[in-house]
C-alpha cells in the first residue's frame, strides 16, 4: 500500500501507522521518520512551496525504487506545504516491512531521496526578512550513497 499526500494541515503519526498496517498480518516492523522545523538563529517561520503533479510523481518514483531494493509491504509519505513555525512537524516517512532491518534501510533511503528529488522549496522568515534555503551538498552526498 502506498500513500502520498501533500497537505497544509498536520498529521497524526499513530493514525498513519494504523492505516499503513490495517489488515496486514505479515508486517513485522514499521519505521517512521518525522521531520520537524528546526528553530534557532531567530527563525520565525518557514513557507514551503512545491510543484503540484511532479511532487507526487517523484515521491512515487522514490517508493518504487525502495520497493526494488527491499521487501517493502507499505509506505506512507506525507509532506506539508504552506507556512510552518519552529517545532511543527513537516514530513512523515513510514515504511512497513517483514523485518526491522529492511524497514530502517528503506525509510532512510526514502528520506534521503525525497530531500534531493521531490520538488519542494523552503523560504525562511526572520521577522520581516526572508531568504530561500540553499540546497545542501551534504544532502546530495547522502543520496549518492544509495547509487
Amino acid at each position, binding site marked *: 500500500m502506498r500513500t502520498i499526500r501533500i497537505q497544509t494541515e498536520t498529521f497524526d503519526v499513530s493514525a498513519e501507522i494504523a492505516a499503513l498496517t490495517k489488515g496486514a498480518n505479515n508486517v513485522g516492523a514499521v519505521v517512521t521518520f518525522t521531520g520537524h522545523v528546526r528553530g534557532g538563529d531567530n527563525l520565525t517561520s518557514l513557507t*514551503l*512551496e512545491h*510543484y503540484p503533479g*511532479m511532487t507526487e510523481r517523484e515521491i512515487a518514483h522514490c517508493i518504487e525504487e525502495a520497493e526494488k531494493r527491499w521487501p517493502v509491504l507499505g509506505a506512507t509519505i506525507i509532506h506539508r506545504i504552506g507556512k510552518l513555525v519552529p517545532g511543527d512537524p513537516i*514530513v512523515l516517512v513510514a515504511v512497513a516491512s517483514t523485518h526491522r532491518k529492511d524497514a530502517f534501510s528503506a525509510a532512510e533511503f526514502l528520506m534521503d531521496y525525497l530531500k534531493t*528529488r521531490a520538488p519542494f522549496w523552503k523560504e525562511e522568515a526572520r521577522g520581516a526578512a526572508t531568504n530561500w534555503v540553499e540546497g545542501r551538498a551534504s544532502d546530495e552526498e547522502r543520496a549518492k550513497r544509495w547509487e
Partner: protein
Amino acid sequence: MTLLYFAWVRQKVGRSEETIDLPAHVGTVGELAAWLAQRGAGYGDAFADPKRLRAAVNQDHVGFDAAVANGDEVAFFPPVTGG
C-alpha cells in the same frame, strides 16, 4: 510550450507560469534558459547563472542538454530543499 517557475526563479521572473511559442533555434533546456535570459531584467537576473538552476521537462528532472519541443511543460527552479 508551458513554462513554470518556482521559488526565487518565480520571484525574479515575476510570474509562476506562462505559455510561449518556442523559437525555432531553441532545441535544448540550456538553449531555452539562454533565450529566456534575454527577455528582460527579471529574466536576466533569474537566468544569469545556469549553474544555480535545475530543470524538469514534463515533470521529470533533466540536465540542461535535454531536448525540448513545443507542447512540453518545462520548469525552472533552484535545487530542491524539501524534507
